[in-house]
């Protein structure tokens, strides 16, 4: 169940971290979230999600990586599309990498309890509604459609990276905040979602690879079969999610996810603050 939850909620703009905090007490799952075994299992699930993103965008990543190393070897930028996207992704990844490494554990320690998470989930909804409203206003003023990803400026890509790092707050969605930031710099929904998923891939992959030694810590009770099954299941659901979302954002927007987050956040807030659920 956790693997499926992670695979879906990591890529849908509904906050996987928020759901990992809210769902177990809501359904009375016997999960200790500070337990080493649980944390190690989450690492495996993230690895599955990152691998699914890599496989889904494999052709794009191959071109991007080739263009990236080509530019380093040449020692200059040519302005070619894949090369520009490669460096935009590097620039966009820097803020979330720095803020994540420096502040993730302290932010998580401060806010990873149900009531703040429920409040942040509602804030996540408001961010999506506000982003959609601003985007519609922009679209009404503009004559053409959104601009392509490669026309982003370095500052705009860094801005999307900063928006992505809001997801350090449990309840704020990584993809939701970065898609909203993409919309605000004039990408259309499909490109904003694609850029958000491309931007998330190295972050999730590196974070999970760097935390992989957690699995081998003494006292961690995860067998290789459980780990493999969790990784594969999270990967399969993440692949299905990204396949669905890329098609969904061709013609639809973030508002249904906003309504879901608002409803889920409000329900959780009432249940936890009235101590209906401990």
């Amino acid at each position, binding site marked *: 169940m956790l693997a499926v939850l992670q695979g879906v909620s990591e890529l849908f703009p509904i906050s996987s971290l928020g759901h990992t905090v809210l769902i177990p007490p809501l359904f009375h799952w016997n999960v200790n979230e500070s337990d080493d075994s649980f944390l190690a299992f989450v690492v495996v699930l993230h690895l599955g999600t990152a691998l699914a993103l890599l496989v889904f965008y494999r052709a794009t990543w191959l071109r991007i990586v080739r263009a990236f190393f080509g530019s*380093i070897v040449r020692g*200059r*930028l040519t302005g070619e599309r894949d090369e520009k996207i490669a460096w935009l992704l*590097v620039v966009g990844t*820097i803020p979330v*990498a720095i803020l994540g*490494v*420096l502040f993730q554990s*302290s932010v998580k320690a401060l806010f990873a309890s149900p009531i703040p998470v429920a409040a942040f989930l509602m804030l996540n909804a408001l961010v999506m509604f506000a982003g959609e409203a601003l985007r519609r206003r922009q679209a009404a003023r503009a004559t053409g459609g959104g601009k392509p990803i490669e026309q982003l400026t370095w500052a705009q890509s860094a801005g999307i990276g900063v928006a992505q790092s809001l997801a350090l707050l449990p309840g704020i969605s990584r993809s939701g905040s970065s898609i909203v930031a993409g919309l605000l710099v004039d990408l259309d929904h499909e490109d904003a979602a694609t850029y958000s998923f491309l931007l998330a891939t190295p972050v999730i992959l590196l974070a999970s690879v*760097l935390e992989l030694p957690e699995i081998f810590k003494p006292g961690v009770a995860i067998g290789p079969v459980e780990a493999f099954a969790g990784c594969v299941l999270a990967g399969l659901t993440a692949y299905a999610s990204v396949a669905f979302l890329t098609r969904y954002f061709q013609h639809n927007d973030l508002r249904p996810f906003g309504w879901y987050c608002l409803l889920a956040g409000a329900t959780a807030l009432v249940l936890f603050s009235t101590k209906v659920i401990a």
Partner: protein
Amino acid sequence: MKALAIVLVVVFVGCAILSIAHPLEPSTVTRALGFSNDKAHAKHPFLYFVLAVLALIWLRFQSSQPAR
């Protein structure tokens, strides 16, 4: 800009060394930066190393630009 790239390389290499040696007393700041001696930091040295490499690449891009 070249000077800024060089400064960044030096700063990030210094931070990487500090986070590997992690010699400082634990506090909010030293823990966040990965310099505290209360535990080994795995992600911090990696981050600083990658940032130093990126600063080096930036320096290379600057150096190969034609002088104006």
